[in-house]
């Protein structure tokens, strides 16, 4: 029944009709994850998908695994409890920019801090889709939506920067329209031991169509996005003719070639730095001045929360022996009243 090898994408599809709008970026993510899981060598019954509320959070209904469509913003907390109770499970959180960063912001940053081994996939469409189009914490300033008819005055979060600020051990970004890139990044996340955060730039065709045109549009994208490669200098551009160098601690886009800068002058990407300064530095890049980095910003190994928890329990048993009710009840300061 759980002959892992035999699993295929089909095994992860449910009988529930998918209820996203035609053309929604969520479909691509669903497809990639359904393709990825069979390759992980994990029995299907050991996967659990936990979500909050939102279009993106309907995800679990479409995965033939264990799953919970919980309440708005709380998926990381529920998933943390599940993973602590059942370390052997592969626990995934699928969330949205409102679910994870508006109402769920606190659980999000604490998950990053603790490093529970969760895969947190954020479908960032920079809008509240399910509630029909209000701006979100990732919407750009000035955005006109139903709740901001005169344009939003909020400054957006960079989900990547926030995750790094909270101490995340794995942070990556990809985009719904680049299937190859998405599956590579998701694969990396799946293999990471600890909280793996992946921001997926996702297009909401109904309420925020074209939000990512600048970096998805085939014509422009080579000049507007920076594909991160560990150990490689930060090079981009159609003819790989542009790069990023430092001025003081500030990033500057330079063109490469004769009389101009050379690759040797450029900042070299390092996913594993002792400090997360470089990753954060990258998280600040945005168009038009700088290209939008895609790929793995940071990936460092740190003990997972549930591993430390299990170890602690083991040590306690080693020290005190497996607890026994009788001894527990009779510990402390007791006295006996004899038959009289």
């Amino acid at each position: 029944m759980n002959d892992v090898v035999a699993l295929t994408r089909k095994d992860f599809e449910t009988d529930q009709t998918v209820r996203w709008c035609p053309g929604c970026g969520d479909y691509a993510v669903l497809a990639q994850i359904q393709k990825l899981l069979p390759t992980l060598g994990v029995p299907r019954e050991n996967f659990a998908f936990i979500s909050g509320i939102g279009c993106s959070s309907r995800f679990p209904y479409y995965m033939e695994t264990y799953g919970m469509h919980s309440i708005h913003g709380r998926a990381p907390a529920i998933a943390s409890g599940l993973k602590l109770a059942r370390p052997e499970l592969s626990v995934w959180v699928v969330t949205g920019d409102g679910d994870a960063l508006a109402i769920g912001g606190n659980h999000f940053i604490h998950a990053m801090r603790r490093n529970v081994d969760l895969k947190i996939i954020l479908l960032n469409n920079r809008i509240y889709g399910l509630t029909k189009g209000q701006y979100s914490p990732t919407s750009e300033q000035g955005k006109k939506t139903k709740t901001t008819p005169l344009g939003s005055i909020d400054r957006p979060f960079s989900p990547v920067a926030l995750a790094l600020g909270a101490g995340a051990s794995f942070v990556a970004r990809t985009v719904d329209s680049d299937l190859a890139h998405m599956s590579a990044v998701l694969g990396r996340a799946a293999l990471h031991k600890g909280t793996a955060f992946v921001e997926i730039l996702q297009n909401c065709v109904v309420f925020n169509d074209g939000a990512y045109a600048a970096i998805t549009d085939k014509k422009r994208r080579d000049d507007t996005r920076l594909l991160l490669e560990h150990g490689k200098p930060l090079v981009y551009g159609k003819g790989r003719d542009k790069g990023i160098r430092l001025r003081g601690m500030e990033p500057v886009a330079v063109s490469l070639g004769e009389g101009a800068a050379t690759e040797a002058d450029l900042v070299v990407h390092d996913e594993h730095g002792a400090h997360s300064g470089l990753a954060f530095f990258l998280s600040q890049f945005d168009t038009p001045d700088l290209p939008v980095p895609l790929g793995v910003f940071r990936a460092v190994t740190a003990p997972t929360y549930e591993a430390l928890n299990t170890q602690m329990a083991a040590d306690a048993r080693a020290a005190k022996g497996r607890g026994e009710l009788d001894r527990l009840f009779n510990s402390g300061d007791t006295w006996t009243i004899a038959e009289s």
Partner: protein
Amino acid sequence: MQEVQRPVEELESVVIRFAGDSGDGMQLTGTEFSRSIAKAGHDFATHPDYPSEIRAPTGTLFGVSGYQIQFASRQVFTSGDAPDVLVAMNPAALKVNLPDLKHGGTLIANSGAFTEGNLAKAGYRSNPLEDGSLGDYRLYPVDISGLTAFVLKDSGLSALEIGRCKNYYALGLMLSLYGRPLEKEEEDIQAKFARKPAIAAGNVLALRAGYAYADATEMFITSYRVRAADIEPGTYRSLTGNHAAALGFVAAAELSGVPLFLGSYPITPATDILHELSALKHFNVTTFQAEDEIAGICSAIGAAYGGALGMTTTSGPGMALKTEALGLAVMLELPLVITNVQRGGPSTGLPTKIEQSDLLQAVYGRNGECPIPVIAAHSPADCFDCAIEAFRLAVKYMTPVIFLSDGGIGNAAEPWRIPDPATLPRLEVHFRTDPENFQAYARDAHLARPWVRPGTPGLEHRIGGLEKDFLSGNISHDPENHQRMVEVRAAKVAGIARDIPPLQIEGPDRGDLLIVGWGGTHGSIVQAREKAAALGLQVAHVHLRHLNPLPSDLGAILGRYRKVLVPELNLGQLSRLLRERYLLEVEQLNKVQGKPFKVSEIFEAIVALCQGEPA
């Protein structure tokens, strides 16, 4: 040290209150004294009363900390009303506590602390120990500070450390006064301060000095003895309600063979349960200090989904924050225990004070038709049984269960007769593993759905907070299905009434007056009723553990009495439930002062309702 020879007065029960600066260690003195007393085979009950500040400035009125204990040769249900003996370590302690001291009671005052400065801080113009204003009491001024300092002058301890020893001097006085031996206490000190031998030595010296002082001096004309109570034979220990609850939860895990998961966020007065369980990792226990109350309950829901006994602990404002997640737990139909150690409200209210005002919230406080069983403990030791009962219901009916305790029960200690684990109820837990026509919301005879552990092959399924199909659990917007689900969730909880043991009636099974109580008011009601019964009044008492659903035999019982009295530490919340359910007029006795009922308050209400003065 040989026992003293002095005229001895035999008493049935004594109430003693230790009062001093929060820095003086009165809680410790009180606890130590109760332990020593307990070993003499007395029954006892205690009531700690401390300020919400961590360490209020010394000598101030709001910095006063108190610890009251009643012990007796009969069963004890409360820490007593007015103390017979008051030990006041400084003027502020005297000022705050004197009003409660029994007329003619014994007053032991640390005269050394009655300095100009302290008198001023307490708002005394003249020194009450000298101005004769205490004429009504048996006043024993003892320079506890000075005498302690004197015996320890060569101890090498700092002035501060010496100051901390004086509570043991006071303890010595009291042990002598009640003829308790010193040896065991000295061992305890050695154990407690094992790492600080100098301090240990100092405390032992202070203890002996106090003991000797009371023996030697003529100050106590008589010494008091309390005959041992005839308590059910067995091995006992002293437990607070929070500690008892923690033991009960661990027991539930062991009895069911299912691991315990506590997700919680600290809050007074519930935090001790988290503290206790955090130290029991060698059992099948995981404790998770969450980032807030919402994460506390949500992590527990996640663990319950994973097949653990999920639970969360909180109080007042924390309970409010769990409201939304409670609704999810009801929809998911997963076992979960939510412990609310109630405190003074509303809002932040009075965090360290006693109140019972979260009952209606527990029963009704959620959006939608969202039924949750509610039980409440009536004493510290009862918290142990309630913790097990809460999980029994949770796993049997696949439902969240709210367990109400309160700050009084939670912090007060009483002797707990240690049970033989073998005699405790087993908790039957069955995890579904059979894929054969599995339906996530198919129900058993108790209307409970199956509990499935993720990782079980072939049972993969999705659940969530949207209304779901009566059988499959898939999302359903079907109107009739919604009606059916709302009704079955209600029926499941209502059905628990069939699973509640018959109510115990104390007193006549019909008559003039029935007292219906719940929670921590139990002790005061029992004593008041006994007092009234002794006067020949036809008064009975039922105490409700199950508040939602109400026991099925309650209606009939209510009908057998002329009047019904409902004493509550709120504005009448159980009264509302009874009126609504039984369309019955009830007499309310309500108190919202952050303090438990005095036996006398309930007694007077009984007498008034029985329309007769005590014979």
